[in-house]
């Protein structure tokens, strides 16, 4: 079954890339290599310069791939593996990848301007301004979500914490070799990979045990320190090692999933509303985009696509591979995650102490979340164990299981920690833009808000404080909501671009997904506010109300977007 699903997933993505993808390219975007891209038209050798499509694909994919395409599908298994796969496959193909591709091509046609700029131009200034608010909330929630996930993983598997610490050490040394001693790039890379392997091995022999609260404090100070030191000291070499970890994880996972030849232990379908977010029955629609974000649809990708990618695109025909294709690759990554947990997750839970009476295919929807919480096996750890067992069950079984566990854990932790220490930069920028209206009227308040240290500490502090509650399922759902809200604006902007600027007769390929997404996100937000959040407030009022206020502001902004979309008739081709 594992092999079949991987092959079917691969074929679906391949066939739809060359059919639906090509149709989007030909009839919706009307991409042509006769059109000069910004890297040609505005070439300056510095900011606007063509990059090879393989480099751009790799860079774009590495920017959009992270911990989210792993955690989301691991959570969504509570619906059964089939609904999770359906969203990862078809949500990706018809909404998520369309969203990424249109964001990229709209930016290319707008001289490399961001999707925010395009939204301001096509839908109005307040829609563009709202980006700052939603991204700021998103950054706080993503720090909270990822800190909670990594904290839980470090507590359960101290070897991963140790391996990560050794990897930091390896990154510092690599930084010196590459950027100070200017060692040959290939030689330094080989040394870096050897040190990465050594860090993983050392992690298994020198585990660092600490409590969840201790890890929250460690992450808080790590965020502050990492954002203050020069990037070539730690962040750059660490990101470079992360890219090798990503390739290793993908290659190992793909090979294992193909050769493991195992049936699924998890039911194909458990229930339309299994117990998940906030301990409440969570309906597949509209909640699925909140749970599985990046493997299928993620608003953040629109910002990445319209950032550096659009400025370096060599020709328009490369846009499909980079915008549409990279999202498919991420969907394939999520497919591997679903396959590993569907094939090995139930055994992992039983090995952790869950009995057949407590959890079985018959009560999967009602008991999956509770059972895994009862044995303190978080979804990140469930993936780590399932992945390691899947690799171990193939001819790759010569690699020690505990070594593979640490690789899988490091894969999640590395990308999550990258998010933790880089969100501060973005949060500072957001805060300074959001505070602009106060600059004239309340200069003192503006200066406090935009003070470098206050602007760095505030988002980190709120994020870690929310993570410390331990109620990460609430945080994850809120993070998903913020992310999909950005996706909603970006897809509406893409639809507006197709209708207003391209005047394509196939405008519905963009408009219908935009409407569907807006309706889904609105319904999801209302459901979350009305059903899930009251329980969170009752349990812990401070964090509960903080998240509630964020959700309400986002819901109000959501209605403003649709009002602007309708007011500007952004969905209609007008002659």
């Amino acid at each position, binding site marked *: 079954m594992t092999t079949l699903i991987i092959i079917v997933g691969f074929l679906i993505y391949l066939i739809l890339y060359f059919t639906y993808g090509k149709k989007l390219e030909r009839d919706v975007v009307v991409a042509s290599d006769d059109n000069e891209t910004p890297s040609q038209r505005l070439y*300056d050798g510095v900011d606007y310069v063509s990059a090879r499509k393989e480099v751009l694909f790799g860079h774009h994919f590495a920017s*959009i791939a992270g911990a989210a395409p792993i955690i989301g599908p691991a959570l969504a298994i509570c619906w059964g593996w089939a609904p999770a796969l359906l969203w990862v496959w078809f949500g990706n193909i018809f909404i998520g990848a369309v969203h990424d591709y249109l964001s990229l091509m709209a930016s290319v046609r707008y001289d490399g301007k*961001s999707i925010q700029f395009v939204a301001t131009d096509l839908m109005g200034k307040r829609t563009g301004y709202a980006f700052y608010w939603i*991204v700021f909330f998103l950054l706080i929630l993503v720090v909270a979500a990822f800190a909670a996930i990594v904290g839980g993983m470090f507590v359960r598997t101290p070897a991963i914490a140790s391996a990560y610490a050794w990897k930091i050490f390896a990154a510092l040394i690599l930084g010196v070799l590459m950027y100070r001693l200017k060692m040959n790039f290939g030689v330094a890379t080989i040394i870096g990979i050897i040190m990465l392997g050594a860090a993983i091995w050392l992690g298994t022999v020198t585990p660092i045990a600490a409590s969840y609260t201790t890890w929250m404090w460690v992450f808080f100070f790590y965020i502050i320190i990492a954002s203050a030191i*020069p990037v070539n000291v730690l962040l750059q070499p660490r*990101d470079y090692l992360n890219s090798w970890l990503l390739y290793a994880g993908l290659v190992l996972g793909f090979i294992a999933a193909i050769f493991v030849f195992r049936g699924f232990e998890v039911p194909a379908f458990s229930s339309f509303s299994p117990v998940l977010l906030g301990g409440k029955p969570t309906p597949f629609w509209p909640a699925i985009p909140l749970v599985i974000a990046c493997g299928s649809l993620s608003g953040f990708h629109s*910002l*990445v696509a319209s950032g550096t990618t659009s400025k370096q695109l060599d020709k328009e025909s490369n846009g499909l591979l980079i915008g549409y294709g990279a999202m498919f690759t991420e969907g394939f990554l999520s497919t591997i995650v679903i396959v590993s947990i569907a094939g090995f997750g139930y055994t992992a839970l039983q090995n952790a102490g869950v009995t057949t009476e407590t959890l079985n295919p018959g009560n999967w929807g009602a008991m999956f979340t509770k059972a895994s919480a009862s044995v303190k096996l978080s979804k990140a750890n469930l993936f780590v164990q399932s992945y390691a067992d899947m690799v171990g069950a193939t001819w790759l079984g010569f690699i020690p299981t505990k070594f593979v566990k640490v690789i899988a854990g490091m894969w999640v932790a590395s990308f999550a920690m990258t*998010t933790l220490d880089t969100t501060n930069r973005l949060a500072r920028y957001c805060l300074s833009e959001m505070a602009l209206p106060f600059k004239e009227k309340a200069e003192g308040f503006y200066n406090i808000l935009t003070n470098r240290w206050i602007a760095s500490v505030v988002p980190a502090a709120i994020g870690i404080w929310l993570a410390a509650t331990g109620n990460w399922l609430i945080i994850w759902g809120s993070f998903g909501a913020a992310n999909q809200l950005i996706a909603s604006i970006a897809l509406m902007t893409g639809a507006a671009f197709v209708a207003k600027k391209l005047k394509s007769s196939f405008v519905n390929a963009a408009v219908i997904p935009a409407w569907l997404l807006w309706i889904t996100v609105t319904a999801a937000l209302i459901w979350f506010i009305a059903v899930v959040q009251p329980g969170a407030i009752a349990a812990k009022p401070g964090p509960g109300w903080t998240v509630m206020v964020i959700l309400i502001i986002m819901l109000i902004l959501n209605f403003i977007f649709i009002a602007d979309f309708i007011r500007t008739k952004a969905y209609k081709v007008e002659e």
Partner: protein
Amino acid sequence: MKFSIPDFFKQLFKGLDALHRSNAAALTVFEVEELENIFALLLLGSFVGFPSPPTFLAVELLPFMEKELRILNKRAKDSSDMFAEMCGTIGID
């Protein structure tokens, strides 16, 4: 053009090499650009409306700074649209 397997692998390895070099430098390049912006603003700011008097150094360097001035002007125009570029460089997902 005939498809050649050795050429295919040659191009593939070239592409992979370029990709890894780019990965090993992306953040640093971004930081360097920020520092260049600050340096250029300090030195040549008056030519783009930044209120600072031209120094003798700026005047002496002027003949050699045509490209930098052009880029500085372009970056000044794009400075209100930095958000997506920051997101593209900083991996959040």
